[in-house]
């Protein structure tokens, strides 16, 4: 039972490490909801601000379209000026002295009254203020345009359908659940994959390279515990930390969701609550387990190979990208679980989570995901034990 002795000791040791506990508990439970809350609040306030912001709009040739000018000047938070020179107005928009310029041609009325199409030129800077100037000016012009067209239809006694030959009636058969899973379902696995990996790094660093740095590696290697016991004890502790961190990250997302849902529609609230029920969470976590085992085996192998804590840390960094990439691909809409993607580790976890959340998971594909993930975990554990038995790994000089 050497592995159990080592597991208990390493667990006690790691739980007393503030840095590890911070990464495991505080980061996912506090930092994720806090970051997300801040991001959402900030975006909302930016949108509000853009709506209420006073925009400086210049009009050139306003006498040609008095009705339009009247409508523009009635708009709230519009500071309207009249100008004559288009070039200087353009330059002022570029340097943001103006938010937008409306150029009305001299013959505007002629065209409108002659039942023809008049052209208004709009100058704006799309890189500023969420494009608010363009959107708000266009809304006013569109409204005016519709009224003119309606007047023409009435006057000429035409049928409205003349201008709208084909009408579309939309019928979406996707459930709210499926829509939600497709659009936001990739976010959850992204979070727990990243955190599962992060959760494995610190314990792995400490249990491998840390052991070398303290000189304790020789103490345990010269004890009767077999190499297998030593690796297994350490490996299981890293897995525990990895999966606990992933789980807490998931909890962090749930806290965030529940905190924000009341501000969204109630039927979505109910859907999300159903989606993230305990049964589905359990299935998802059962897939996180082999991924955590993979993370733990790789992180531990790197850590035990490194000569020092610092070396291990720098070796771990590129691994981040290898793990983030499939998780990010899984987050993109359009990617679905198939016979091929179900075999690609990490990506398959991400896509399977999406499918499970959407309630449309194919049991055969899910079985393939399990097979692929447990195979990967098995190979990486085997590799890690082999690796630990090499003299060149343990006593690298």
């Amino acid at each position: 039972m050497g592995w159990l002795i080592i597991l208990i000791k390493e667990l006690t040791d790691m739980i007393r490490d503030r840095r590890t506990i911070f990464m495991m508990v505080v980061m996912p439970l506090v930092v994720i909801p806090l970051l997300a809350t801040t991001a959402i609040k900030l975006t909302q306030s930016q949108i509000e601000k853009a709506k209420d912001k006073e925009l400086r709009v210049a009009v050139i040739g306003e006498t040609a379209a008095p009705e339009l000018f009247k409508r523009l000047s009635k708009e709230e938070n519009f500071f309207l000026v009249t100008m004559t020179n288009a070039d200087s107005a353009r330059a002022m928009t570029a340097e943001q002295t103006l938010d937008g310029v409306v150029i009305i041609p001299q013959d505007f009325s002629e065209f409108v009254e002659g039942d023809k199409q008049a052209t208004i030129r709009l100058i704006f800077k799309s890189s500023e203020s969420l494009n608010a100037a363009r959107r708000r000016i266009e809304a006013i012009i569109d409204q005016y345009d519709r009224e003119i067209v309606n007047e023409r239809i009435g006057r000429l006694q035409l049928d409205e359908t003349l201008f709208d030959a084909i009408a579309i009636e939309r019928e979406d058969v996707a459930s709210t659940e499926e829509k939600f899973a497709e659009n936001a379902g990739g976010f959850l696995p992204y979070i727990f994959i990243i955190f599962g990996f992060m959760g494995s790094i610190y314990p792995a660093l400490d249990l491998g390279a840390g052991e070398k740095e303290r000189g304790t590696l020789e103490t345990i290697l010269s004890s009767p515990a077999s190499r297998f016991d030593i690796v297994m004890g350490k490996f299981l502790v890293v897995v525990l930390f990895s999966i606990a961190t992933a789980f807490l990250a998931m909890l962090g997302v749930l806290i965030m969701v529940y905190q924000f849902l009341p501000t969204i529609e109630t039927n979505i609230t109910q859907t999300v609550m159903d989606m993230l029920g305990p049964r589905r969470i359990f299935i998802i976590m059962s897939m996180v387990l082999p991924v955590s085992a993979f993370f733990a085996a790789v992180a531990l192998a790197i850590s035990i190979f490194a000569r020092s804590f610092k070396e291990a840390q720098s070796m771990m960094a590129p691994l981040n990208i290898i793990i983030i990439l499939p998780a990010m691909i899984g987050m993109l809409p359009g990617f679905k679980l198939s016979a091929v993607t179900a075999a690609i580790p990490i990506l398959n976890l991400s896509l399977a989570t999406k499918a499970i959340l959407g309630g449309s998971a194919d049991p055969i594909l899910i079985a393939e995901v399990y097979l692929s993930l447990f195979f990967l975990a098995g190979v990486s554990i085997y590799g890690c034990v082999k690796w630990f038995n090499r003299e060149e790994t343990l006593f690298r000089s």
Partner: protein
Amino acid sequence: MIQVGHLSKDFRLTRRQRREHGPQYKNAKTIRAVDDVSFECKAGRVFGLIGPNGAGKTTTLRIISTMLKPSHGSVTVAGYDTLKQPQEVRRHIGFMTAQTALYDRLTPTEMVQYIADLYGMEMNHFEERREKIFSMLDMQNFSDRRIARLSSGMKQKTSIARTIIHDPDVVVFDEPTTGLDVMTARRIIELIRACREEGKTVIFSTHQMSEVKLLCDDLAIIHEGRLYFNGSRDQFEGQMKEATYEDEFVRLVEEA
């Protein structure tokens, strides 16, 4: 008792190491760290493995402790072969280096308990040994404090306690006093003497000749993996051509 017979150890060279070791290793796959070394350490005697840095001392001691496997030759410890019965060998040895090799977040009691558990010690025996060692080293007043908060002297005591908690027949010290202050080094010397008095087999490596005079009953001089002298201290003194141990050591190595 430790018997080392015709022991050799080769290490594989990486490409970088080949470059660093100079032109003669340009096409070499391996480097020999220990070359046909034989000696015997007897119970109740202190055996000194003397040599400069890089002589092969640590490699030899790691093979004795089963951390490394010999490339050629054999080693038996307390009657067990290190290759065939490594577990049994490990059960009978205690290993110590100058590094205290402790876990900062454990207490001395927990540290010693961990090692005892790894050695499969029975609870009664463990508690008896712990009481004895803790009072011998005067450790009671800090035994439940985290190791990170202990002074270096306290850490050294804890390190001693964990080395001998399982009452090993054979104790291996790898340069145990290197870099230690006088007081701490003296405590290690006392420990080595105590081990001898208890009839244990003690092997220790050093490059300090003063310690040889102080401690060794038998000694071997090793340089670049090869033995240059192997015998008792009396024999060593008898064949000396130089006035001091240090000069004699240099002469032996240079003449070879």
